[in-house]
């Protein structure tokens, strides 16, 4: 089972750093804004939230594959020119979960004090002009363009329909069980005024009536396409205690890697994610177990990705998530409060950065669908061949 990938060796940073500031833009359908504009707005709000000034930010991380926001954008917006420690291995997706570890190392090495991680996206706007988006990003990869796209195995809904079917075939998972995940995320979003789907209710019958895009995957198994972004600031726990907000302590970080390459079609454990390798060391670093978790958020482009990560992170046995998620288990007031902001399915498709921000809010006690007494919150990041686990706790 566990010979198809490995965990990245990460230094134990438990309790050394905390998330001290969060910032979010509006989450919308096509806004006409650029990702750069969105990114600097999120950055500005995170800095204000922490009670800092732009010149206090001496470390910056973003995702180098999305060159929309970077150090130039930061300096141009704030009119600053000071030295920044930078990393292109931050931003969203799996890296939204590991950026605090990068920051912790930079802080421990004395290279930075306050590290800002930013991820903006404007795919809803770009889709209108056909200049970007998840499908085009994939179709441009030569092996996919030659070995998948010509064969109709494109774009993401088709990959995940295929994974979903295999999960159904191997474990007996049902469409109603996938639907339970979508309904939970929607109900949570209905409590969250900033969620794109805030006003739209969804029942299991609505889910089952939604169109099949690629049988067995329905429209309501699928994430939104959105404009929006968020940012957070990591600093030492000691420093965080002097700032404006209660610290969300970084208790554990993990990163897992599949060794069968980056293509979904060739993943040898087809119905698993590299959470299998990421979650256990993160929980070990934190001295916690899945049973201690009050809020779980996972990167959820499709319901099956939630299903797999819930299993792979140890919240139930492999193959048992279908039964586990039935009913209201994943609702904000259920047994495992899950994607309490609505997730990529019903909040906004901003690739995981808002998931981390949601966990911080839950720890602070300020989330719209607040879980009473939330002390431990987890983000599960996922990017095909990689996964990450970020465990945040109350300062105790």
């Amino acid at each position: 089972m566990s010979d198809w990938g490995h965990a990245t060796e990460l230094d134990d940073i438990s309790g050394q750093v905390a998330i001290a500031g969060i910032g979010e833009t509006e989450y919308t359908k096509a806004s006409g804004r650029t990702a750069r504009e969105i990114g600097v707005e999120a950055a500005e709000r995170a800095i204000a939230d922490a009670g800092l000034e732009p010149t206090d930010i001496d470390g910056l991380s973003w995702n180098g594959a999305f060159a929309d926001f970077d150090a130039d954008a930061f300096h141009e917006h704030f009119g600053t020119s000071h030295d920044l420690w930078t990393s292109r291995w931050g931003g969203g997706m799996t890296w939204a979960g590991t950026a605090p570890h990068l920051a912790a190392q930079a802080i421990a090495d004395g290279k930075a004090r306050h590290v800002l991680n930013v991820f903006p996206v404007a795919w809803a706007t770009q889709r209108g002009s056909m200049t970007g988006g998840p499908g085009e990003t994939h179709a441009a990869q030569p092996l996919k363009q030659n070995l998948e796209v010509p064969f109709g195995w494109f774009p993401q809904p088709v990959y995940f329909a295929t994974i979903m079917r295999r999960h159904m075939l191997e474990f007996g998972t049902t469409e109603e069980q996938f639907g339970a995940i979508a309904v939970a995320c929607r109900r949570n979003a209905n409590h969250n005024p900033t969620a794109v789907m805030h006003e739209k209710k969804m029942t299991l019958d609505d889910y089952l009536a939604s169109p099949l895009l690629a049988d067995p995957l329905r429209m309501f198994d699928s994430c939104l396409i959105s404009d929006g972004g968020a940012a957070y600031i990591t600093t030492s726990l000691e420093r965080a205690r002097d700032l404006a907000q209660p610290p969300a302590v970084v208790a554990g970080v993990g990163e897992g890697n599949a060794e069968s390459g980056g293509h979904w079609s060739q993943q040898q454990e087809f119905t698993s994610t590299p959470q299998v390798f990421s979650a256990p060391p993160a929980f070990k670093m934190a001295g916690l177990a899945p049973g201690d978790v009050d809020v779980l958020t996972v990167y959820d482009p499709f319901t099956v990705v939630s299903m797999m990560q819930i299993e792979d992170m140890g919240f139930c046995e492999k193959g048992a998530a279908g039964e586990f998620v039935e009913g209201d288990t994943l609702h904000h007031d259920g047994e495992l409060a899950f994607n309490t902001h609505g997730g990529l399915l019903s909040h906004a498709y901003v690739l995981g950065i808002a998931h981390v921000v949601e966990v911080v809010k839950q720890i602070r006690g300020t989330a719209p669908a607040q879980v009473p007494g939330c002390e431990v919150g987890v983000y599960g990041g996922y990017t095909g061949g990689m996964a990450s686990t970020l465990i945040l706790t109350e300062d105790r």
Partner: protein
Amino acid sequence: MASLKRADFPLPDLSDERTTEFFAGAARGELVIPKCDSCGAFCWYPEERCLKCDGDAFTWTAVDGHGRLYSWAVVRRAFLPAFEEMVPFVTGLVALDADPTVRIVSYVVDCDPDALAADQPLDVVFRDLRFPTVPDRAVPVPMFVPA
């Protein structure tokens, strides 16, 4: 990043050297997969280095065209204009008998989509792939039919 502005997209780009042999094989009615010269493993997709031993030399090797249906989707929404007249169609992953860790992505044709079953035996056939959006062009490719 390869261009999506190619006039023959979404037909395969036959000038891409990493997959030239695959389509050349299909044109002569052979399913060929790169085999690592160092460790003998089939390496699919054709990456630059063998994921098993890091070797960098490969020989494209013909395999018999038998496999099993690992999983599939019945695509109902045309995600590209080229697919508009094809939907619904079945596309999926075929685990080759020669090495089940090799999964070929292709169409399952001449089948009743509702009658497909997990791991059912399939045989390769070579058919011309054509799209109405790319007139007068066809590329022979492997597809699969129930055995």
